[in-house]
């Protein structure tokens, strides 16, 4: 075990990580934020997603100042409904991160599968898949996500809408991002397909599915990992954008984007904390994940070594 860790520590990958301050800092920041989101119920002083626990009279409290009616003090102030901004950021980040991870996983499974099929099978199947991808690529991702979100919302039963909203978001964002995966995987598959080990496997009589999954897939995973990291940052931002536009997370369970939308209405009246803290959190989170993704791309890209 110790040997394994030592070997990993000495690997190229870890060497590069240890020598990149940007990677270390962004990794730590991302981890702190992710842990804070996961442990939100234990860290957060309030439960902002339970409407019954809110006291409207706490609304618009300034950070660190006792509220003029109730005397309660909130670290980062409260929003228009009396929700503690700090707790809401933690809980909101859970939504953002959960939607982000789930949407990327969904996009990755879909994109990699279709990319493998398109690259390996080729022919009219491959053409069809890639033309659909091309057409989708001509639309901005957020537009596709909004379209899917709108349609899906129409299909969900009314009383399940709040519970379903998160899953619809995941579906919508995932569907808007599978194209990147499919294109990269198809390209890599086309290259790998011609290599000798694939031909050898074929001569051994292995089925197409087995060759795709057991032989080609492990060899195209590097770029997929890079895209997944960058997609994660994009998905978090897409979720925030949708919620900012008021079509994402339900208003009683605000995510970071919803909080920014609320705060933006109070900019002129001087209640800056409702906007600033969630926006700074979103920025930090997206930046950290993006920088990690950039570093990963540099490490895994043979041409840049």
């Amino acid at each position, binding site marked *: 075990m110790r040997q394994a860790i030592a070997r990993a520590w000495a690997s190229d990958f870890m060497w590069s990580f240890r020598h990149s301050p940007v990677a270390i800092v962004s990794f730590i920041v991302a981890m702190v934020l992710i842990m804070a989101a996961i442990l939100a119920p234990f860290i957060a002083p309030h439960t902002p997603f*339970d*409407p*019954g*626990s*809110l006291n*409207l*009279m706490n*609304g*618009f409290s300034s950070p660190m100042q006792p509220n003029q*009616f109730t005397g309660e003090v909130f670290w980062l102030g409260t929003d*228009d*409904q*009396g929700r503690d901004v700090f707790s809401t950021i933690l809980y909101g980040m859970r939504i953002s991160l959960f939607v982000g991870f789930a949407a990327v996983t969904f996009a990755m499974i879909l994109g990699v599968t279709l990319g493998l099929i398109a690259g390996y099978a080729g022919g009219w199947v491959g053409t069809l898949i890639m033309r659909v991808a091309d057409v989708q690529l001509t639309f901005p991702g957020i537009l596709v996500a909004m379209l899917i979100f709108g349609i899906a919302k129409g299909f969900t039963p*009314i*009383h399940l*809408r*709040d519970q379903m909203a998160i899953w619809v978001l995941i579906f919508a964002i995932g569907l808007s991002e599978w194209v990147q995966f499919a294109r990269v995987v198809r390209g890599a598959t086309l290259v790998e397909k011609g290599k000798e080990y694939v031909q050898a496997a074929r001569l051994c009589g292995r089925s197409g599915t087995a060759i795709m999954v057991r032989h080609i897939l492990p060899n195209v995973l590097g770029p997929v990992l890079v895209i997944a990291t960058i997609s994660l940052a994009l998905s978090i931002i897409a979720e925030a954008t949708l919620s900012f536009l*008021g079509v994402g997370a*339900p*208003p*009683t369970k605000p995510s970071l984007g919803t909080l920014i939308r609320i705060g*933006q*209405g*109070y*900019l*002129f*009246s001087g*209640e800056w904390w409702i906007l600033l803290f969630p926006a700074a959190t979103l920025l930090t989170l997206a930046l950290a994940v993006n920088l990690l993704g950039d570093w990963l791309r540099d490490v895994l890209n043979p041409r840049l070594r």
Partner: protein
Amino acid sequence: MNIKLMLMTTAIVAGTTGMAQAETLRWARAGDALTLDPHAQNEGPTSALAHQIMEPLLIRDMTGQIVPALATEWAPSPDDPNVWKFKLREGVTFHDGAEFDSEDVVFSFNRAMTPDSDYKELLASVKEVRADGKYGFEIVTDGPNPIMPSNLTNLFIMDKGWAEANNAVKVQDYEGGEDTHAARNANGTGPYVLVSREPDAKTVLKMNENYWGMGEFPMQVSEIIYTPIQNKATRVAALLSGQVDFIQDVPVQDLARVAGADGLQVITAPQNRVIFFGMNQGDDDLKSDDVDGANPFADVRVRQAVNMAINRDAIRTVVMRDQSIPAGVVMPPFVHGWTAELDAVPANDIDKAKSLMAEAGYGDGFSIRLDCPNDRYINDEAICQATVGMLAQIGVNVQLDAKPKAQHFPLINTLETDFYMLGWGVPTYDSEYIFNFLVHSKGEKYGSWNGTRFSNEELDASIQALASETDLEKRDNMIAEIWKVVQEEVLYIPIHHQVLNWGMSDKVGTVVDPGDAAKFKYFTMK
């Protein structure tokens, strides 16, 4: 001061006085008119836009007084108490040049009495309308109707010929999603002519040079550019930066900022509008709740509990920043029939509300969807969110569905919502208007905005009798009796009366219209 600067200042001053003849007013508010068809939707911003282009027989001026518009004189007929006689204005033309006469009035009234019209409640007591010569018009009612003129202040007159030529004789079926020529175009007699319209984006109006009231009203605004801006911050930014001259709904949190800005002013007045929640109390089972085979709102104790759970003072202090008057009845204080006792704010008593819920068999609460507009009333969505929190305290788990008014209002008209927010203004200043629309059972002639499924035949008969009751004391007693039932049944959950905050550039001169309908022919421009 050096001479150059002085000369420049003089030139600028001279320039601005010269321009007073051609003043553009850029006007914004949260939402757009829903349609241009004057009879399809009885809704504030819809008739506010229509008032610039079209005219009723008589209107309320900016102070609420009834003054002549297309009718110059009106009185009950001396021969028959059931007839109102109107003398129409002569020499008026529609924007396309067609002449205005009694034929157009008869046509418009008959149109407004068809089932798709949203003004049929106002004319429910009308038996017949007829022309009396070219410039005479008569309304025959079931019985004597003393308050008929106040029912007509939003009842716009269309050109019969234009409607026939453009396939617009039938009222647009707004709830059914119909689109007609009259929904996008207009030919009125009003002070402004429609130049162009993109719904929800931009509407341009220019002065009607042939307007009959040219010498009579200020008419200092020569062009109106109307752009709905739903986002509060964007709307205020547009006013602060001078992109618009007049906004009808300054967000309450930005009042001080706008009032303190150079060259801007805020004028404030109580509005003739009450905000409230409606509940489906008639159906046996609700679609949007989680209770099977029963309707929690059908039990008056649940409605009482909801009424008690809402902390109106907190909404006033935090959500409205003191810019509202908590309400105990769905009737603005302007209205005939209003009393301070009726409007007494229900006590906020969570313990009592909880025990009422338990008595009704909902001690563990239930779950329900609340439908809310997000671009109609002041802080409508925030009020609904606050309500979600307050109802959670008595175990009612509310899913909030907030959406633009164009999608929200049809839910009420077509009875697709079980719990909804609505605001009601009373242009007639009389309780009968509220009863006709909100209390009477929903039917062909009455109750089009009654989304509660409440139905009481005795009460309906009493409401219908109001129109022809000439003994005013007896009528007042009937009104009080009806209100008593409405209050006892907790038919609606009143929240508050709105306060209007109009923000505008210093050069705009006006008073606040309690009906929130800016009539630009009365505006002055410096």
